[in-house]
């Protein structure tokens, strides 16, 4: 019953969407507000409809309806309730419904805003939103249906289908296969939804850009309208990426946080172009430059979202030939091609109306440095894209599949990241329109000296790897510049207004949230860089097999094996848990409990590390192998990961900065900076 309801609701959604598209077109044709309003209402209807479908799936999951194939694949009797609910996005078809639901939420939210100033955009934004929804809901209804069930035909054959085959009986398995143990973790609650939110919400700025191209309103309006939406989309995507790496660190048991895996890269690529876009639109707002480039960037970002989801869902990564095994691959590919062709076609159509309003003069001006920023991001994108697609390309053209590992990405993207780190420090100090070595130098020299002192201190302290010295020096530089800018701003404000420090700080930031929020975001990035440098360049490890009572030494840490406990849990696991006492430089600092879980239903083991986290480092212990008590002992692997927690702290600061930047400004909208010779001369006089 419920499965039929869920499926029926999705079919109705499809019909409503198609109606909305036609109503919008008709309204445009006949210049009828009433028809466009009807289309808007159709759009509003999609969200409650898909919500019903989502509720149906969740009810099926929670009530253990293993006759439904999706429920059988992703749940089992021993899974706790919260995991049964999150299993909604645990498999292909469920996650497509989830994606459609989030998409409907966003398109609904955008239809609810005030449209007075942008009436001409409305029908097109509705059309684009509904077309995207039609695509994803069609995938669910026609290709990957979560409501199909198991049937036994009279001849004894077994079949999977939505509707009952003639005289067939329902098959009702007693238990399901259950979610992959790696997914049975609280991270499952938040990482996929954040990532999906990030992907899905980029459709809004994309829709407005296309609407701007179609209507000919190629001024900055579309950028200003979508500024906050873009920031929100970018925020979710960033959160999704950071949470994913935290999850990998917690449970994948190899002490790492990012593997340049194709699935990770698929989420990273739109983030790269999205970040470039966030910076590049500021150039358009301040100087009227790069209008065409900004449109290209948002089209590219949205296309990379679709491409990423195509890569991960179609099976094309395991082999080019796996591509056509499910209809999903070709359908995504067609949709991607269609999107890119139409978007780029529209851009060419409006090419001449997107002429720049000025020129760049100075290599050190902020717009020039932002251009450099964009080039570096595109460079990293090229590296990531090449590495991810190289196996496909090589197989397609030579028949021989060739892959590249993390070494490729580190070598080629490393210098580019370093360049970005440097820019993050220097660019905020440059001025729009014009900057010279002299003006930049004036703003720069004090933090520069501070950072050089840090560099010397590190060298004296024993660090000799030039890569680490360079990277750490850049981090110090950016931190000092950010602090210096804040201090300068607060002191200047205090001189004028006489406010006490916290009030001055608050008012400073709230007067120009984008600028000071941006500084906080950059600070967050630097802290993350610090964590990455720590673990990548200074990690130490050791492994040993020891009996109870034995101990392992790693640097200043000593890890003693106290005992091993074996027990079964309520949720279907057999657990082997070791108790380890840790001491640092002879002083005891606590106990850790690395363990091995073995899931009965899926027959899969999982290694959970015991971790002690401080600002300085993580002590990370893995229980590797054990045999019955009579033999030599238990094998442990111990890692020391310096500074790794700054990666997570930096992520938190990063998110905080985005919230500051996204909060509505008290100031009116940014105005153009005119660059005339008179301006330059007077600015030079000021020094």
């Amino acid at each position, binding site marked *: 019953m419920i499965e039929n309801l869920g499926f029926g609701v999705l079919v109705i959604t499809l019909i409503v969407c198609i109606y909305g598209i036609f109503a919008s077109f008709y309204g445009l044709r006949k210049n009828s507000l009433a028809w466009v309003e009807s289309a808007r209402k159709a759009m509003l209807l999609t969200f409650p409809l898909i919500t019903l479908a989502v509720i149906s799936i969740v009810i099926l999951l929670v009530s253990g309806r293993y006759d439904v194939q999706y429920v059988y694949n992703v749940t089992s009797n021993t899974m706790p309730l919260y995991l049964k609910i999150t299993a909604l996005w645990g498999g292909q078809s469920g996650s497509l419904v989830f994606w459609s639901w989030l998409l409907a939420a966003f398109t609904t939210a955008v239809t609810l805003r005030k449209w007075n100033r942008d009436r001409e955009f409305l029908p097109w934004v509705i059309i684009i939103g509904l077309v995207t929804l039609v695509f994803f809901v069609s995938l669910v209804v026609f290709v990957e249906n979560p409501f199909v069930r198991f049937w036994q035909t009279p001849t004894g054959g077994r079949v999977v289908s939505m509707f009952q085959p003639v005289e067939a009986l329902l098959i009702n398995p007693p238990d399901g296969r259950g979610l992959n143990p790696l997914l049975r973790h609280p991270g499952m609650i938040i990482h996929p939804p954040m990532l999906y939110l990030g992907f899905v919400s980029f459709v809004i700025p994309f829709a407005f850009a296309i609407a701007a191209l179609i209507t000919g309103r190629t001024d900055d309006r579309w950028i200003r309208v979508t500024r906050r939406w873009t920031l929100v989309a970018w925020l979710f995507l960033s959160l999704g990426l950071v949470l994913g790496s935290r999850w990998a660190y917690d449970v994948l048991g190899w002490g790492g946080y990012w593997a340049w895996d194709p699935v990770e890269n698929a989420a990273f690529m739109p983030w790269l172009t999205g970040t470039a876009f966030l910076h590049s639109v500021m150039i358009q707002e301040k100087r009227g430059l790069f209008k065409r480039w900004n449109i290209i960037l948002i089209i590219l970002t949205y296309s990379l979202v679709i491409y990423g989801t195509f890569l991960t869902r179609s099976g094309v990564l395991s082999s080019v030939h796996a591509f056509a095994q499910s209809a999903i691959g070709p359908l995504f590919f067609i949709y991607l091609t269609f999107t890119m062709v139409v978007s780029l076609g529209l851009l060419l159509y409006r090419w001449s109306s997107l002429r720049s309003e000025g020129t760049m003069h100075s290599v050190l001006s902020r717009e020039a440095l932002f251009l450099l920023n964009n080039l570096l991001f595109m460079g990293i994108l090229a590296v990531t894209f090449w590495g991810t697609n190289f196996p496909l390309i090589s197989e397609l053209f030579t028949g021989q599949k060739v892959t590249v590992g993390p070494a490729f990405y580190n070598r080629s993207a490393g210098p580019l990241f370093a360049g970005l780190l440097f820019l993050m420090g220097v660019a905020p100090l440059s001025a729009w329109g014009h900057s010279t070595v002299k003006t930049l130098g004036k703003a720069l020299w004090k933090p520069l000296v501070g950072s050089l002192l840090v560099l010397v201190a590190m060298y004296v302290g024993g660090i000799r790897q030039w890569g680490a010295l360079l990277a750490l020096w850049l981090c110090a530089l950016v931190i000092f510049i950010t602090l210096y800018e804040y201090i300068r701003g607060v002191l200047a404000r205090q001189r004028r207004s006489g406010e006490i420090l916290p009030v001055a700080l608050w008012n400073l930031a709230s007067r120009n949230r984008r600028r000071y929020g941006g500084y906080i975001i950059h600070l967050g990035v630097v802290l993350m860089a610090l964590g990455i440098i720590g673990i990548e360049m200074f990690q130490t490890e050791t492994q040993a097999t020891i009996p109870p009572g034995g101990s392992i030494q790693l640097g200043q840490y000593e890890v003693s094996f106290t005992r091993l406990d074996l027990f079964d849990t309520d949720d279907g696991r057999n657990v082997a848990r070791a108790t380890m006492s840790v001491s640092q430089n002879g002083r005891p600092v606590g106990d850790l409990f690395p363990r091995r879980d073995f899931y009965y239903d899926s027959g899969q083991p999982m290694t959970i590390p015991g971790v002690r986290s401080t600002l300085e480092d993580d002590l990370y212990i893995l229980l590797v192998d054990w045999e019955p008590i009579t033999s030599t002992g238990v094998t442990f692997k111990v890692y020391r990961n310096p500074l790794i927690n700054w990666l997570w702290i930096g992520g938190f600061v990063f998110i905080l900065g985005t919230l500051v930047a996204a909060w509505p400004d008290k100031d009116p909208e940014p105005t153009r900076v005119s660059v005339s010779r008179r301006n*330059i001369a007077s600015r030079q006089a000021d020094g």
Partner: protein
Amino acid sequence: MTIDGFTNKPVRGGRAKFLVGGGLIIIAVIYLIVSSAQASAQYFMTVEEMNQKGDAVLGRAIRVSGAVVGESIRYDSTTFQLEFEIAHIPADNQEISDQGGMAVVLHKAVNNPSLPRIKVTYSGVKPDLMRNEAQAILTGKMGEDGIFHADELLLKCPTRYEEEIPDQAVDG
């Protein structure tokens, strides 16, 4: 020549420095990609192909996939030396599904002594999923001793490829 660069230079000359600068960066990126790809490229092969190519693959970074032969697994947990054999499985997904799916292919590979095999040695922690009929994806080099020295070892659980449609419940 003044420091500020904003004298009577023609606008065309102004554009040139941006084009040159941008071009240099693009060239640098291309160089980085090409040189790193050459240095880190790994060739994807099957066990059969590796045996056929013989000495030609010596010293080259290779990624090979095969079925773990359970009875050949030897692990010394004091030295962390893991040794095992893998049996040939086809690379083509169409061929795998024609034969009845990955689980069937892995099972056949291990139980068919006439299929090509190679010996593997790996230094490190024995992975949780190391067992008979698991699918192993190895990255490393073929040594002169005819044994594949794996730097990276990835395992996929055989139960993942279980039957698509389960049996009817006993109670009916």
